[in-house]
């Protein structure tokens, strides 16, 4: 008998059966790519090629290719790094924290969000390596005894904590994502023939769907979720400590860890929305990624956007309350000075003011508004990272070293590289991997779907 909750709208619409889920999701993996996919993929690869050229030049010539100067030693590189890491956070949040909270609406979107996490962290890592200047020596960041004697990395340094945090985050997210894919690969394997059967057979690791295997699988998922939840919070906390443990005015703030974590969730959910709204149209998944999913994510965006807004105001208040002239100056200059006011007010408009529109139900449930605002939020979050990094560095303690940052073509090109890489990887994922977690959607279909009739 179908039980329909009077308070909760269905999560899967269109009267889908368990078999329909297999058909709908496997179709994209089995069919030839659509024209739209080929166009998007070509564009991504072109961007990737141009970006690779810029990145190669940066590696070969050194980071003098960037617009860095005597004062601003970190600019777009670390801005982009923090931004991409933040984007990645929504994936783990959706798969881990919402799993622990038993939120069923996560099931249709968790797979793509986790893929987004992994690709975003790869993009973030590319800036970490690039900003080292001599990327072939990147292994110096690892605790390896070296040829000069047993000189070790400095475990007091937040930059070393970052190496551990990001690599652990990437590894655990990758494993979590892959374990979730295994049963779905088995479903595709059973439908495939020839080379595809061998390929998906290898990917599915020999999964047979026995009750014993599912019992272990669920235990693994739950413990991985339990491990990932504090991991998500720790990673962005540590990223914020790259700044907060320094003494630069504008960075030296205890509010940074929670503020960065909220910002990461904020921008991550916005990116999930951008991608999901495109994916649902391109792959015709309107019955799986519904307006209900969109509304739930928009509620998270309005919450985290408000937290971020309060953090901005708290920073300003504390700068005044601390009676530290350098700190107060940094904040007043950031908002009302001549050089970076445009970045500051772009950040305020995109992150604090525009998401407040989501308090209106019609905006929250409108696809066009959501798509627009999700992009606005991502732009705003990039500006937030830029404002924190560049404006704090541009006005140092000594006026003689004050400077302004202007990006070069290579700054822009390296940023484009990550867009090319991200979308190329995401499109390959969307074509060859099941983009919605079939097994988990099947598990909720009875309790949360709008089925026409069952026996």
């Amino acid at each position, binding site marked *: 008998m179908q039980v329909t909750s009077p308070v909760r709208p269905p999560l899967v619409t269109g009267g889908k059966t368990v078999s329909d889920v297999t058909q709908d999701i496997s179709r994209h993996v089995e069919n030839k790519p659509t024209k739209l996919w080929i166009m998007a993929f070509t564009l991504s690869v072109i961007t990737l090629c141009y970006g690779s050229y810029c990145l190669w030049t940066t590696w070969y010539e050194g980071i003098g290719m960037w617009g860095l100067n005597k004062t601003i030693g970190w600019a777009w590189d670390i801005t982009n790094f923090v931004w991409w890491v933040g984007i990645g956070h929504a994936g783990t949040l959706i798969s881990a924290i919402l799993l622990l909270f038993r939120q069923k609406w996560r099931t249709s979107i968790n797979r793509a969000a986790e893929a987004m996490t992994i690709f975003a962290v790869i993009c973030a890592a590319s800036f970490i390596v690039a900003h080292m200047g001599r990327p072939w020596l990147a292994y110096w960041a690892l*605790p390896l005894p070296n040829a000069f004697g047993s000189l*070790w990395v400095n475990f007091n340094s937040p930059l070393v904590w970052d190496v551990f945090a990001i690599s*652990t985050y990437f590894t655990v997210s990758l*494993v979590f994502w892959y374990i979730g894919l295994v049963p779905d690969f088995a479903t595709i394997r059973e439908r495939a023939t020839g080379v595809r059967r061998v390929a998906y*057979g290898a990917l599915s690791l020999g999964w047979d769907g026995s*009750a014993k295997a*599912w019992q272990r699988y669920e235990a693994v998922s739950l*413990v991985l979720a339990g491990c990932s939840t504090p991991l998500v919070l720790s990673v962005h906390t540590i990223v914020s400590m790259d700044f907060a443990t320094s003494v630069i005015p504008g960075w030296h703030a205890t509010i940074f860890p929670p503020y960065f974590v909220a910002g990461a969730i904020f921008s991550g959910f916005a990116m999930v929305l951008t991608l999901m709204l495109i994916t649902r149209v391109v792959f015709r998944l309107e019955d799986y990624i519904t307006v209900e999913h969109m509304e739930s994510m928009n509620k998270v965006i309005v919450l985290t956007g408000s937290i971020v807004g309060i953090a901005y105001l708290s920073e300003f208040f504390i700068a005044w309350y601390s009676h530290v002239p350098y700190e107060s100056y940094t904040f007043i200059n950031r908002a009302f000075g001549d050089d970076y006011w445009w970045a500051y007010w772009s950040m305020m408009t995109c992150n604090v003011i525009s998401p407040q529109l989501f308090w209106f139900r019609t905006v929250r449930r409108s696809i066009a508004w959501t798509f627009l605002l999700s992009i606005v939020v991502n732009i705003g979050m990039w500006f937030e990272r830029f404002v924190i990094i560049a404006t704090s560095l541009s006005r140092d303690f000594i006026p003689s070293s004050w400077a302004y940052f202007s990006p070069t073509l290579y700054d822009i090109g390296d940023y484009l590289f990550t867009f090319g890489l991200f979308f190329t990887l995401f499109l390959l994922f969307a074509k060859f991997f099941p983009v919605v977690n079939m097994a988990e959607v099947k598990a909720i279909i009875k309790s949360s779907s709008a089925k026409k009739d069952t026996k």
Partner: protein
Amino acid sequence: MSKSTNYIIGVFNDEDVLMDAVGTLRSSGVKIQEAYTPFPVHGLDDALGYKPSNLPIAAFLFGLTGTICALLLTIGTMGYDWPMDIGGKPYIPLPHFIPVTFELTILLASLGMVATFLIISNLKPWGHDPFMFDGRSTDDKFLIVIDLDKNKMDKVALTNLFKQTGASEVNSKIVENH
């Protein structure tokens, strides 16, 4: 020399019917070999009489190993192998070692548990397309598999019992043991 085993397989269309069937079969004294489902059915492991998995304990032990390794690494390198005065900080500032210790704990707990899961479940990418009693069990069918030799009831009685519990099909399969 190879020997063959006779299996009888009940195919169900619905997870609730499957759960009821498992209960009915077990209370009639039937020994169920295994059940196969396209998605995790909550409570099926209890119904089949499986003990809870010990994987969380494995994860804890791996995590503990990670904590110990991280503390040995940080304290050993910074405190004993090459002590350096960094900004007048103590050689072994434990609060500074928390991030690395935490990350290695999570890393080893996760990787260790997943490796254990793959090994005990015989999941590996090479060398086998697993034996499937019915390929549809990864799509929308639910299977209960019974080893005829291990049960007192004969095939006809078991087929009838399956039909009574709501199976949509009852199939039999002879599997060669190697």
